[in-house]
């Protein structure tokens, strides 16, 4: 059930959007090292282009995240946000969005343009929209201190208030608190928008510095989809970005091995009805390893679907939770289980969750459970071709690992994956941190 609410979702975390694919993905590299991923085709009615720049999480996270947020407020040619947005509305609701996301300890900045395809509209809009996109990227609005002070301040305040507001979403808050506890001293503990403290010390100069770093050689990928002429796109991108400095050769580096220690427990008391139990595990595996796919299957078997072990055992059998699910970040080597439970049954829920992780390691899941998981993943992979943003996102990850985007190969690998491989994928999994938020419990409630 999903009642309508006037509260829109939070700032988009990653580039997403829409466009097409009947053709296959083309990859190209400009002379200065900028990567192009082009997904041409006519199946879709939208067109998009996203520039993604890869930096690192660290002391500059907030300044970096402010770059796309401030860029989309206006350029030196269209300085007023009001005018820029009027232009976009006029172009049949073109969208120009800036966002930041995390991929392991990499910090990704996105600037995305989406429009309806020219062939669907009464008049063409793409070239005008592309001009605005290129404009905000290359002709930012500057004043003597660096980036436009007013826009920097407004975006800084907006992001600060969103960070302060994370507690309003208890599910998200609990996950962030678990990450903070698990990754103390590691910038991975930050959100993609940095920390409140970082934001407080970030101004126009810091944002301008982050922007300069982006231009000076950070890896850039431009991904586009829809009614695209690949050759024309390559020429256009050469014209727009060919003058930028040579890109750094910054291949993917596997995450550092996480230290082994006794399980960390964090408890927080808040005036909430539902308890939130979040468990962080060290995977002992990462994205560049051949076991990557088996890890994803193991995680899906554990907690991605309604037929997965967590949903079955924690929710359906024990009626302890409304949700119980898991996710992996292979770029960090992390497995997270999260659930919303009756706080009085915390111990029981935790035990059932630990038993399910154990079941995968020991191979006590059924052949049928594995088969259902395999089919669900095959279905998702096949359906991905309907969503260009998903294809391009997947292609980006593969490109970062230095591998081609090959969904057919992945389908074949899924078909063949064995229970031994799935078991082995979790062989190094270790519980690291348990975070639990609940209302204060009276004695005897536990």
């Amino acid at each position, binding site marked *: 059930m999903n009642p309508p609410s006037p509260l*829109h979702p939070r700032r988009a975390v990653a580039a997403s959007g829409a466009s097409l694919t009947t053709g296959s993905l083309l990859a190209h590299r400009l002379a200065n090292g900028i990567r192009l991923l082009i997904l041409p085709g006519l199946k879709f009615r939208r067109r998009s282009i996203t520039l993604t720049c890869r930096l690192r999480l660290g002391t500059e996270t907030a300044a970096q995240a402010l770059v796309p947020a401030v860029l989309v407020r206006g350029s030196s040619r269209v300085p007023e946000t009001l005018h820029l947005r009027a232009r976009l509305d006029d172009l049949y*609701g073109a969208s120009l969005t800036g966002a930041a996301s995390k991929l392991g300890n990499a910090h990704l900045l996105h600037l995305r343009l989406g429009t309806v395809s020219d062939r669907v509209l009464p008049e063409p809009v793409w070239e005008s929209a592309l001009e605005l996109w290129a404009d905000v990227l290359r002709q930012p609005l500057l004043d003597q201190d660096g980036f436009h002070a007013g826009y920097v301040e407004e975006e800084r305040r907006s992001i600060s208030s969103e960070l302060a507001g994370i507690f309003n979403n208890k599910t998200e808050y609990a996950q962030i608190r678990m990450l903070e506890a698990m990754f103390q001293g590691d910038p991975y503990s930050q959100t993609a928008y940095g920390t409140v403290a970082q934001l407080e010390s970030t101004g126009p100069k810091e944002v301008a510095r982050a922007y300069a770093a982006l231009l000076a050689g950070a890896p850039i990928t431009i991904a586009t989809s829809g009614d695209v002429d690949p050759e024309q796109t390559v020429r256009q991108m050469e014209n727009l970005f060919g003058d930028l400095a040579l890109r750094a050769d910054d291949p993917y580096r596997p995450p550092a091995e996480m230290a082994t220690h006794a399980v960390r427990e964090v408890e927080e008391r808040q005036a909430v009805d539902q308890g939130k139990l979040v468990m962080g595990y060290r995977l002992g595996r990462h994205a560049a390893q051949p076991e990557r796919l088996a890890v994803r299957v193991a995680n899906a078997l554990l907690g991605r679907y309604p037929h997965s072990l967590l949903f079955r055992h924690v929710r359906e059998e024990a009626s302890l939770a409304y949700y119980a699910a898991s996710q992996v970040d292979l770029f960090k080597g992390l497995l997270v289980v999260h659930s*919303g439970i009756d706080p009085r049954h915390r111990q029981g829920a935790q035990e059932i969750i630990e038993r399910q992780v154990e079941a995968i390691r020991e191979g006590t899941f059924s052949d049928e459970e594995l088969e259902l998981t395999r089919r669900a993943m*095959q279905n998702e992979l096949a359906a991905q071709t309907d969503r260009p943003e998903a294809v391009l996102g997947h292609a980006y990850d593969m490109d970062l690992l230095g591998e081609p985007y090959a969904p057919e190969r992945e389908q074949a690998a899924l078909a063949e994956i064995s229970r031994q491989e799935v078991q082995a994928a979790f062989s190094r999994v270790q519980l690291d941190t348990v975070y639990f938020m609940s209302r204060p419990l009276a004695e005897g409630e536990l």
Partner: protein
Amino acid sequence: MIEQRLSGVGLSHFESELPSGLKVSTLVLPDFAKTYALLGVRYGSMDTRVPTAQGSRPIPAGTAHFLEHRLFESEDGNAMDRFASLGASYNAFTDYFQTAYLFSATSEEEACLDHLLTFVQRPHLTDAGVAKERGIIVQELRMYQDMPEHRSWQALLESLFHSHPVRQEIGGSEASVAEISAELLLECHSAFYRPSNMRLVVVGDVDPGAVVDQAARAFPDAVGPAPRFEPPAEPTAVRQSRVETDMAVSLPILEVGFKDPEPVSDLRRDTATSLMAEALFGESSDLYLELYRQGLISDGFGAQSFTGPGFGVVAVGGETVDPERLEEGLWQGIERVVANGLDPDRVERLRRREIGQFWGLFDRPEALAHAWMGMALQGQDLFQLPDLLQAITAAEVTARLALLSSAQSAVSVVRHHP
């Protein structure tokens, strides 16, 4: 079966009404890998009475939602298992006026559709199953109680309406779900899950004729009409003009809702209302940027127009550091626009923007199917939107400003309790 061509995108949709009364709508999306199917029942949380020999009697809040949860239980196991074994993803949801069941598949589409059309007709309701589900539903309700945006919205509807059942929580309360029995669920199933009260929407690279044949086989016979929703007498005035909710939040929420004193089902009027709300409060408006500049709103701020049988609401708001100043800023902005009128150029730009958004829907089969179903179950036609958007005049949009009267409004504030 009637084919309707959408010349803008070069696509067609197909409409039929079967002898059983089931309506079938199909949109063919060539080359899409995925088939998305949605089976909707015009039965939601607003349907608070069930027929009896003498007339009707009230049922506990949350019954439609409870039935949606329990309908997955079948005699030979769980209906989810069958979808899972076919490799499909599947789900269901309940809102104010509908219950809907859905799947998405890239293979075995025919078997999935058969299953969807069949399992909703075969309730297997036991007292033990109902008792177990209650625990899960109570957890779901508690989760919503911890969501400030949900609480704010709920409090707003309770303030705007005296007796219209849209003011009830979709899932009911812990007390109301405690009163729901297997027997009651069966009674509601038999009353509302009738083909004449249902619609199938299928979007994907499918054969529309084959979809209709399959649906006709699954629903061969008419069963008679389902109960008609009779909106209760609802005063035009709001029930209370202000409500405050205390809970654990780190950022307060302010929402202002306006109650339409003359709610009617009219797509043209609804579209004009949405354009008016977007013109005033959308992120390309003066007011939005002014409030943003003052640090009173962030990206989550927005307005929506929400209409249904016997009600109409425009609501605007979001998280804010200072609900008092935001409220003041909103009223000033509204007064200014009401005094000066809307800029016709801005209305024109928003018209173009909405047309773009409409065509963009055809790349998002799920969103398209949901919008289609939601409107069709209320007797409206999604595909009239492009023509309507072309035809609506700035004067019509401006006329909808009348809705924003403080006398017809309620303010909902959520704050951190001390």
